[in-house]
């Protein structure tokens, strides 16, 4: 830099000195000359900076190091864990980004830095050297001319002409070079355009890599079944897991169907606190040791109660709280049932599906009331407050006993008349294998089940005959419900058939 500076300084002094002297270069070329120096400075510094960057990066890209760390971490954690999968994916991505960066830097070096180097360190200095030479020649010519004016002689005149000649040749050469430089300015400018383009391309590619990896990462997250469900809103849990019935509800109900139906005081008797905590945590992970809990139905019932209780909103919804309570105050049982049905139909689909599932289960549980002593009334007392509640203010606590009794007046008749509220049988094991295969089908006596290949209208007719009319919306929903059941039924029926034919398959 210093050198260039001095050169340019000398040059400008030279211009001043020469100002009164003969001007051999045209005005535009003088302008070009000024620019030469600037361009040289600019390109030189660009080049130099790049060399520093390149040297620095020759060690190892930070991205590559990051990628390696991630991949090593993934190897430690293993591909069967979500975190391991994520680390692999991210590590690979970072590696790709590093590759892009290397590619980018290489391209910049080749297409921008090198040409700029040539321009700054070779082309321009050449021109400047020539310019100096020309200056010298001009000086020679001027002194020859002065001498000629002072002492008019033939030899001096020849000398002067020769000097002028030499100067002219040099000037023409220099002019040609300078015009060339000017003409090539578009090419020089192009280097910078290339720089930006390459950079844009690099960023585009990097972004593409990131965009392409994001869906995969999200898919991994979503495909991961071990998602907490306790304390999550029902809708969120169902959306994330792609389920129709909340996992804790289905898991607990299916297990209870297998090992808890005869248990005295199911849902009433308290489970072991540590067992309950463990079961809740394992349900949150989507893992279940059926064997361990088959001897402890109270823990399962407790977990189900906890799940319902910990929902941010009661299963029977806060919005409908007042309507439920109003319906419970109707003394005439027929009218109360109608009113309860009307509220029931207003439940959002997710809540209705899960509520129906639960009520159908409780109705089934009440069939065993001789041994489990849980009548619909008893169930309503112990479970009601887990299904419907309101956010009471502290001074309202004294009313809670009354409210509890009102809730009993809602739940008890619904369980008692479960088949009227929710006609048809229900498949409890919809998605999982929470028990031995033989128990997955609780509905062998499905003879009146509409088959899935049945025409929609046929099916609708059959339903219309078999139960009291519901609203159209509920009708359609019920159709969906039956359709689903039908498929499940066929599958589980085949399964049951298989197992009855080959008992050895049980193990």
């Amino acid at each position, binding site marked *: 830099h210093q050198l260039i500076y001095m050169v340019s300084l000398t040059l400008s002094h030279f211009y001043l000195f020469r100002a009164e002297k003969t001007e051999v270069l045209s005005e535009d070329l003088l302008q070009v000359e000024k620019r030469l120096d600037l361009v040289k400075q600019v390109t030189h510094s660009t080049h130099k900076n790049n060399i520093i960057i390149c040297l620095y990066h020759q060690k190892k890209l930070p991205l590559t190091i990051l990628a390696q760390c991630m991949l090593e971490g993934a190897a430690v954690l293993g591909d069967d864990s979500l975190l391991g999968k994520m680390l692999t994916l991210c590590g690979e991505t970072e590696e790709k980004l590093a590759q892009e960066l290397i590619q980018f830097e290489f391209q910049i070096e080749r297409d921008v830095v090198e040409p700029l180097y040539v321009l700054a360190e070779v082309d321009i200095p050449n021109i400047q050297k020539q310019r100096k030479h020309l200056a010298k020649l001009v000086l020679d010519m001027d002194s020859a001319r002065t001498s000629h004016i002072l002492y008019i002689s033939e030899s001096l005149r020849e000398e002067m002409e020769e000097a002028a000649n030499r100067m002219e040749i040099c000037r023409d050469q220099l002019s040609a070079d300078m015009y060339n430089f000017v003409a090539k300015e578009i090419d020089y400018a192009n280097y910078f355009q290339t720089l930006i383009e390459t950079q844009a391309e690099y960023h585009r590619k990097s972004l593409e890599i990131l965009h392409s990896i994001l869906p995969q990462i999200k898919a991994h997250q979503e495909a991961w079944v071990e998602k907490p469900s306790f304390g999550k809103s029902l809708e969120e849990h169902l959306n994330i897991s792609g389920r129709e019935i909340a996992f804790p509800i289905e898991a607990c109900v299916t297990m209870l169907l297998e090992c808890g139906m005869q248990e*005295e*005081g199911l*849902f*009433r*008797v*308290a*489970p*072991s*606190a540590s067992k309950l905590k463990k079961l809740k945590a394992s349900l949150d992970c989507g893992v279940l040791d059926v064997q361990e809990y088959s001897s402890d139905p*109270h823990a399962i019932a407790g977990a189900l*109660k906890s799940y319902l*209780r910990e929902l941010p909103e009661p299963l029977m919804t806060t919005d409908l709280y007042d309507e439920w309570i109003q319906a419970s105050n109707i003394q005439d049982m027929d009218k109360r049932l109608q009113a309860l049905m009307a509220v029931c139909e207003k439940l959002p689909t997710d809540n209705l599906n899960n509520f129906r599932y639960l009520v159908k289960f409780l109705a089934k549980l009440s069939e065993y009331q001789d041994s489990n*002593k849980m009548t619909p*009334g*008893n169930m309503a*007392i*112990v*479970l009601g*407050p*887990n299904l419907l509640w309101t956010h*009471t203010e*502290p001074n309202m*606590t*004294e009313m*809670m*006993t009354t409210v*509890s*009794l009102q809730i*009993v007046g809602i739940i008890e008749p619904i369980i008692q008349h479960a088949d009227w509220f929710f006609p048809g049988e229900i498949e409890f094991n919809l998605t999982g294998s929470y028990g031995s295969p033989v128990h997955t089908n609780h509905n062998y006596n499905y003879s009146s089940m509409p088959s899935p290949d049945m025409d929609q209208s046929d099916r609708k007719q059959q339903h219309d005959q078999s139960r009291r009319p519901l609203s159209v919306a509920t009708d359609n929903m019920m159709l969906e419900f039956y359709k689903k059941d039908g498929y499940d039924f066929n599958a589980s029926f085949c399964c049951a058939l298989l197992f009855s034919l080959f008992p050895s398959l049980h193990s």
Partner: protein
Amino acid sequence: MPEQSNDYRVVVFGAGGVGKSSLVLRFVKGTFRDTYIPTVEDTYRQVISCDKSVCTLQITDTTGSHQFPAMQRLSISKGHAFILVYSITSRQSLEELKPIYQQVLAIKGSTESIPIMLVGNKSDEMAQREVETKEGEAQATAWKCAFMETSAKTNSNVKELFQELLALEKKRDMSLSIDGKRSGKQKRADKLKGKCSVM
């Protein structure tokens, strides 16, 4: 602290199905029902003698199957004395009492002057016993409270339970013997009458 009213409130806590209602009903009505109905919440009243006068013994039979923390707190803050019931046939039911005791301790600040009775019910079901008498006693010692094993079914120790609980109350002089006193007075009156009639 609950106000010093004419009512003396006893709150019965315990896990679901340990026999809280059975104990209270045996004491209040002298009966035992073999039905199986969970309690939402029931309150029974009985007149007892207190500081040479009478007051109402109010027994609150709470629900064991689901906890409303708010409701439980309310019962504790209003209660003067507590009966913590477990079933000797269920170790878990004794475990369930621990958070309730902690809650009482937290709300009352100290359990020193508060009558608390730890009760192991269903003492008739010896075959299904899971909690030894010694274990119940040890827990009571740890909690610095009284202990008793009862059977609502066979009416064993039920009246004694309430008698002893009232005896633990040092601020008032209470006893269940109001009926006895009254009948005593009645007898004297009868005697006088008799004398009168003789006269």
